[in-house]
């Protein structure tokens, strides 16, 4: 499948969302790293160098935009593909994230789990 042993980092503060995404990607044979806030997410990303990152925007400790900004300052982090997870209400923040070269954004409520998996696979296949 090409995705075997691909490492994905999911940064999301909503426990159920994080759990569902993680379980889904594990089912799809990804190696899944989890972080429940921005600061943990950044640490994990810089330590583990995942192949792709799913990043929530509104989170405690450090928000997704700051995580993305800090990632882009890192030698490894400036190229890592990042997909923004969003709610409808934060469109201006999404625009800001896209400026920081986020690969794409997904509105959480609209996208089915398998669609998210497909999107991630698409991106990884391109690289």
């Amino acid at each position: 499948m090409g995705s075997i042993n691909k490492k994905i980092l999911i940064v999301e503060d909503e426990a159920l969302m994080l759990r569902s995404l993680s379980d889904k990607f594990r089912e799809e044979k990804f190696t899944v790293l989890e972080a429940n806030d921005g600061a943990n997410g950044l640490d994990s990303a810089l330590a583990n160098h995942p192949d792709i990152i799913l990043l929530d925007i509104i989170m405690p400790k450090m928000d997704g935009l700051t995580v993305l900004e800090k990632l882009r300052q890192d030698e490894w982090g400036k190229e890592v593909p990042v997909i923004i997870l969003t709610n409808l209400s934060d469109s201006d923040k999404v625009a800001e994230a896209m400026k920081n070269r986020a690969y794409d954004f997904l509105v959480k409520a609209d996208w089915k789990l398998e669609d998210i998996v497909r999107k991630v696979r698409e991106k990884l296949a391109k690289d």
Partner: protein
Amino acid sequence: MNYFDNQTAILLAAVAALILGSLYCWQIFYLRDKFKRREEEIKRHLYELTILKELGDRVGYSLNIPNIIDVICGSLNQFIKFSAVASLVVEPDKIVFKINLAEPVAKEFVAEVRERMRQSLGALLNKTIPQRQIKEVISGAVLAEEFKEPVRSFFNIPLVIGDQAAGVLTIAHTQAGLYREEDMTILYKIVQQASRAVTRLQEVVRAEQRKLNAMVSSITEGIVMTDRDYKIVVANPAVLQALGLTNQPELSIFDFIDNLEGKFDIRGKLEQSIRFDKIIPEREVMIRDKFWQIIVAPVHPHAQTDAETPPSFLNSNGNLGVGVNEEVLGGVVIFHDVTEEKKLTQMREDFTSMMVHELRSPLTGIKKATEFMQTGNISANPQSYGEYVKLINASANEMLSLVNDLLEVAKIEAGGLAVKREEVDVRQLINERIKFYRVIAQDANINLQAVVDDKLPSVVKADPQRLAQIINNFISNGLKFTAAGGKVTVQAMLHQRRQDVRAEGKILNWEWFLNKGKQSFKNFPAALLLAVTDTGIGVAEAGREQLFNKFKQIHSAAKSEIKGTGLGLSIAKGVAEAHGGVIGVESTEGEGSTFYCFIPI
């Protein structure tokens, strides 16, 4: 004897007649002279009166000093002979020398008069007046080179307005010894009268101006008024503050243009407003980190005063004052600071979007979880299944308590928070609350305890559920912001009327932050004082008020590492106020805080 007698008698009679006659003549001459002098005096008085009346009529309530002097000079020929009458008057930007010639004189004559006046005005003002500052106006008879007569008679009258020398008035003649003291006195009197009148008038105007300035100064809106040439007439402290012009001594429209940084075309708007006689409002202009609503309006000489005036002093055309036909004096620009309103709107929007986030986030989680549970192989894994159910349940609880909090806030705002006072055992209530939070405190390694003043009655009248709400919010707040190894203490006492709460705390030997505060609550009625003191991060002084503001709290909660809506404290405030009490916090940053509330009993 008879003859002699007759002769002698005739002689005597003649001498007597002679004496009498000359006495009579002398008397007549004397009287005539007296009459003549009296007549002259009357003439002078009459002149004085005439000229003063004329001055009054022609000058009216004028403050225009050059104009007044022109009137005086113009009427002088009625009573005094001169070759020339001249004035040297200080105007704001120049000094004007005006000379009116009654007969032809040489250029040198004029130059001499002018020089003498320059010297005497210089002496009055105690400074040298440069020649080039003087503007010359010559009128009347011609300048002719063939008349070489110099100035032979001359006198100066100083013109003093208030305490300030405003100019010099001069009479000059080519003939010598012409002017007597009476002439000078009259002129001196006239000038003095005129200057006194002007001084008084100026004082009235100044008093009015002071009133106006004081009024304009105290207005928090920035106000700047210009005349038709955009010269600044009035600029109040608020507008100078707003545009950073406070240290500018002389202000011109260009200072305003510069400091508005191209955000607002003040000159263009004034021009439009004056030309079309229209009020121009401008919403939300951002200048120097603040938002301003700016209104530009024309200024008319007379504001409308008749009965038809709408109460807003704007007439039906939307003009200030009546005068469509009247000449517009200038324009006024009013800067209204809407930064706070804008902030409030922003806060409200943040609040709404945060609420939406707080509800949508767990709902999306539930949606994703149930989706995964439907499609995945979760049923094959009972442990995982159980975990999902637990998470869904927690999410539902979270949303429910948020919705409840929002409803409470809505009730408080509507003023409909019901308080059912009954007898409450505060000690028992506190113990129950501590029992409820014990597990969380133990998990966080925080020492949670209670101290209650022995003098506190066994029961007080209050709403037990509402009191529990306050204690809950205080405790959970304290636990959130206190690190492991710290302490959270619930405190309760009976605050006595007229007592200083800081002294009361000292007697009880309580460790808290109320003794660090300025408030004594001395004028407060007897009350149940509930407090929760923690050894947490503390609250900066600037942020204390806003902790109890639902909008603000929600905003900072998003940024902090502690998740939560932050509605608890604003609800606690509503509950305390519904009891007629007060709520607050005292704190030392880095050491901890005491959240307190007084419930009058």
